[in-house]
């Protein structure tokens, strides 16, 4: 339980791919991830608050501030789910800017759209159902791209980063908010207990879906660590890549600029 499997994780371009701790056929991962998010979409926000004790809001706020978007900019929020980042960006870019909320999962995108409309956020927001590995946008389309807690669910992470680099404008930035490897002494052990005991229990009690939340914990352990992800961003063509550890490295915000 709780083994850090990052170093043994297979390459994203192998015939099989990780789905949590399992190895599954590449086509299967997309289907099974879709099933997870179809299952959790209804209670996604509630579970986020319960699982992170509300701290996910601070992580997202930090990401929004770090993006330093300006009025009139064009933003892409990939795997944007229920639209937390989109809502923050929509206010910052104003009526002259445009943000595209994109997700591969119909249930999540629909929930995000409804939630934004309920909050009165409209006019400068577009919604696009898209696979992050094959983005339906022209080269150099966006000033800023974010992907918040979405990259670990992508089948081919490097392909997704390559696509992000392609559609980012020269001088623009891509920001990856994702679970990472805890850096504080003693934290990994506590984090393991929490991830593999509390999270599945919360999933069972609140969302009636223990398996999806077990997948969440496992997929976090299979996510590349801070340096590995920074290297993947460099391979995608980003320059001046840096990252900021939050909550002792439980989460990291990576950023790269397109030269």
């Amino acid at each position, binding site marked *: 339980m709780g083994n850090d499997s990052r170093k043994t994780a297979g390459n994203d371009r192998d015939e099989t791919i990780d789905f949590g701790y399992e190895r599954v056929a590449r086509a299967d991962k997309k289907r099974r991830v879709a099933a997870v998010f179809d299952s959790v979409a209804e209670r996604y926000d509630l579970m986020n608050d319960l699982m992170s004790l509300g701290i996910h809001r601070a992580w997202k706020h930090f990401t929004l501030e770090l993006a330093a978007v*300006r009025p009139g900019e064009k933003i892409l929020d990939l795997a944007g789910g229920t639209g937390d980042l989109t809502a923050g960006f929509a206010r910052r870019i104003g009526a002259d800017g445009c943000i595209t909320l994109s997700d591969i999962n119909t249930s999540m995108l629909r929930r995000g759209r409804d939630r934004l409309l309920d909050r009165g956020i409209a006019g400068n927001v577009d919604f696009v159902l898209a696979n992050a590995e094959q983005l339906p946008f022209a080269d150099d389309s966006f000033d800023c791209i974010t992907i918040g807690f979405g990259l670990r669910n992508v089948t081919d992470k490097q392909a997704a980063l390559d696509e992000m680099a392609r559609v980012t404008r020269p*001088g623009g930035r891509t920001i990856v908010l994702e679970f990472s490897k805890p850096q504080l002494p003693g934290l990994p052990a506590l984090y393991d207990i929490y991830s593999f005991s509390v999270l599945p229990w919360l999933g069972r009690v609140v969302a009636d879906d223990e398996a999806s939340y077990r997948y969440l914990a496992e997929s976090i352990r299979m996510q590349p660590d801070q340096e590995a992800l920074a290297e993947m961003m460099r391979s995608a063509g980003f320059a*001046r890549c*840096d*990252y*900021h550890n939050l909550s002792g490295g439980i989460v990291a915000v990576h950023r790269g600029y397109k030269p």
Partner: protein
Amino acid sequence: MTTRWTLPTAAYGALEIALNRYIGSDERALARCAELSGRSLQIDCSDLDLTLVFVATVHGMQVMAGAESPADVRLTGQSRDFARVFFAGEEGLSGSALRIEGDVGIAQQFARLFTAIDFDLGDWLDARLGPVPARFIGLGLRGAGAFARRAAATLPEDLAEYLREETRDVIGSREHAAFAARVNRLRADSEHLRTRIRRLAAHWQAPR
């Protein structure tokens, strides 16, 4: 081997966010930042053993612990020298104690950018809270600021008055002058008395 001091990664982010908030609130600063886009400045604080790299972009400043490639200009000095040049604006870059390696022109552009940042609290609050709450909060903060400035200005006078009038640990100049005059008179009288005693003693000891 020396170990350089490194801030937690989130601290660089916090510094960058604060800096970009100021830059974003001032159109001229943002324009200057855009002009410098792609240029970098490395700061080495020798007393703190700390390195900061600032990279200008069209939308703000990126702050890092180190850069992949050498910065366009590198400044080395003590933290107080950096504060004088970049934040207080007390002295120019060329006359400062900072050691400059690289493009001086770029260093001067960065220095101008940092010293010219003009943060308008009212505009910032207005954009976030709306005009009415922003006005009240702004008035409150300005009032608190004015009180703090007044308190800072009158503190030495109040302290002197307390020591002079309440505790009597120090005295005023007029009181001091009168006291000093009394001391001088006492000294003069003592001198006269000593002289008279000496003359009387000489008179009684003289052979008759």
